[in-house]
């Protein structure tokens, strides 16, 4: 059952790293209760999972998790969150993911006993439902395996259940390349939200059955694809900023069907979701530069209850293995935030984070606390997903226009032209979702299996 938010939980003044409206307490770890904690992530070095004995793969995970926990202990860090992001073969083969989960949970338990290191384990199966073209989002073996993966990992010792679900991506991949706002809305809030509702009801059920926490999702495949392409100069940054705003409508669905946070690190839309839901969020910024460059290295810190490195291969840097280096950087970042908060000056540091980035890039600009509040309000002002999408897109464009005219935001001439173009497009969007869907659906019929979104093939 989906319960739609119609008001904000946290306004701009209340939005702060380490502080959620509804903190999460589990296993001795408190998230959003005043302190920011590191969330450490990692992936395997170049190797073939198919051609490597399971024992060797497990040894690699043992090595990584042991090393990062050792470093955390060494630095006096008392609580950490570890994410195990399942690779495709580990999701397709649920017992494989289960066995690695159990291994990691075991190591974390050891560190709890022997060193007093409190920890939670987040598991993130990969969304294997796209393996077919067009993707089969509901029927078919992949959906079954995906849920089985959640179930097994949950029973094997996971605490937090997450996914980077890809519903709607078959449309947004194209729409991003074409800077097509309508396509973004169709893929993200029409298809994406429908898929989120379907998928997250199932994940919430697994969590209930297994006593774990349905944590949250991210529109990574949409928002971060746009961000990375904008960073490479392929698409306008103002467009990527609007895409980010729209993704919040999609990711929000998880919380409306029962997810409890912390939201998944790579969803920068988490800032907006934190304002709406008050739930704790994981964020990533400069110390996730190993995984991707970004224009929001500092400003992302404003909202972090967990502070993440997103992903790094287990390869050797001069100081040690890369995940250990990440752990060190995260711990120092967290210490700084926690010192400021401890002196009652968290909001001051938050404002510096914001000022650091907001004027230089539209994607950062819409993540300033004031902008976040405005975007969140736009979303909760509507109940229908499509109308939320339109409202937040319009608001994002308005904010950018205002920032530009007040000279709070620097934009190149080309970016300004695109802002005008997008402004024009959003102003002409139909107010009613049925009309919009009728217009868009035929355009994407070769890429989308509408039945898999619960949408009839023809109206």
């Amino acid at each position, binding site marked *: 059952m989906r319960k739609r938010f119609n008001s904000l939980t946290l306004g701009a003044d209340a939005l702060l790293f380490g502080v959620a409206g509804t903190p999460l307490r589990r296993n001795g770890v408190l998230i959003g209760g005043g302190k920011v904690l590191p969330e450490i992530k990692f992936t395997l070095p*170049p190797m073939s999972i198919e051609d490597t004995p399971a024992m060797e793969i497990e040894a690699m995970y043992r090595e990584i998790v042991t090393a990062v926990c050792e470093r955390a202990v060494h630095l006096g860090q008392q609580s950490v969150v570890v994410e195990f992001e399942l690779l495709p073969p580990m999701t397709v083969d649920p017992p494989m993911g289960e066995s690695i989960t159990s291994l990691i949970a075991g190591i974390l338990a050891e560190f709890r006993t022997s060193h007093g290191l409190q920890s939670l384990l987040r598991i993130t199966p990969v969304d294997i439902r796209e393996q077919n073209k067009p993707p089969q989002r509901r029927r078919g073996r992949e959906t079954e395996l995906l849920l089985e993966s959640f179930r097994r990992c949950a029973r094997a010792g996971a605490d937090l259940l997450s996914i980077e679900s890809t519903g709607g991506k078959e449309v947004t991949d194209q729409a991003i390349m074409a800077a097509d706002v309508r396509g973004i809305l169709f893929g993200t809030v029409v298809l994406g939200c429908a898929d989120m509702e379907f998928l997250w009801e199932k994940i919430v059920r697994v969590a209930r059955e297994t006593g774990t926490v349905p944590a949250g999702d991210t529109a990574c495949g949409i928002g971060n694809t746009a961000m990375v392409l904008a960073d490479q100069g392929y698409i306008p940054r103002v467009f990527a900023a609007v895409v980010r705003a729209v993704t919040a409508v999609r990711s929000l669905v998880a919380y409306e069907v029962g997810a409890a946070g912390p939201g998944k690190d790579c969803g920068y839309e988490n800032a907006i979701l934190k304002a709406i839901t008050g739930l704790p969020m994981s964020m990533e910024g400069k110390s996730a530069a190993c995984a991707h460059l970004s224009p929001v290295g500092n400003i992302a810190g404003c909202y972090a209850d967990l502070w993440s490195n997103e992903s790094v291969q287990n390869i050797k840097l001069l100081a040690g293995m890369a995940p250990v280096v990440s752990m060190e950087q995260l711990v120092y970042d967290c210490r700084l935030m926690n010192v400021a908060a401890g002196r009652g000056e968290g909001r001051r540091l938050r404002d510096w984070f914001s000022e650091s980035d907001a004027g230089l890039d539209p994607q950062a600009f819409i993540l300033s606390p004031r902008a976040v509040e405005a975007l969140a309000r736009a979303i909760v002002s509507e109940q229908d997903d499509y109308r939320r999408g339109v409202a937040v897109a319009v608001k994002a464009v308005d904010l950018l226009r205002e920032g530009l005219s007040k000279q709070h935001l620097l934009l190149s001439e080309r970016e300004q032209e695109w802002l005008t173009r997008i402004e024009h497009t959003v102003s002409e969007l139909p107010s009613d979702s049925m009309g919009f869907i009728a217009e868009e659906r035929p355009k994407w019929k070769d890429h989308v299996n509408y039945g898999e979104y619960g949408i009839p093939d023809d109206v």
Partner: protein
Amino acid sequence: MDRYAEIAQHVQNGYSERARKAVEAALAEGCPAERVLKEGLIAGMEVVAAKFKSGQMFLPEVLAVAGAMKAGMELVKPLLVAARHEPLGKVVLGTVRGDMHDIGKNLVAIMLQGAGFDVVDLGTDVRVEKFIDAIEREHPDVVGMSALLTTTMVHMKTVIEALKQRDLRAHVKVIVGGAPISKNFASEIGADGYARDAATAVDVVKELLNSR
């Protein structure tokens, strides 16, 4: 402005309808199809590709241009085929086994097509056999592989080894790319080229074909 320059200009502007009409007119006037292609369509696209590469143009703008080029191509292609004109080159593309990442490869396909190459896109999660089959069937000049995961990039080497085993390696150049891939890795596995992004992929392919 001559016909060719006119075509090139319409392509550059991304005006599909005008480009189509100008090509039609040029062909009607007896302009050779090959010159229409090279001096008109491709010339126009080349300007755009250069601007894109140097960051003066966005991809959606390039896509509009590609559309204009395609409109002209539809008229020129049958004539070229009839005249047994050799295409600029053919490229087979795919994301390797176990990897569902699509968009980087698609960008490369767009840029290559814009530059006048024939592109055969095998999609994602492409297994060794599928690469081999396509190479045997299509006789491409270049095969391009993409990988976004550290745990799938290793399959690039498998494909190259398979090419060697089938005595196909000498007949096709191999380029690779994707987030975890470095120049160094490319040369370690014996690829001929490394494309750090879609914009440079065209240059890499051109260089490889010129060096033959």
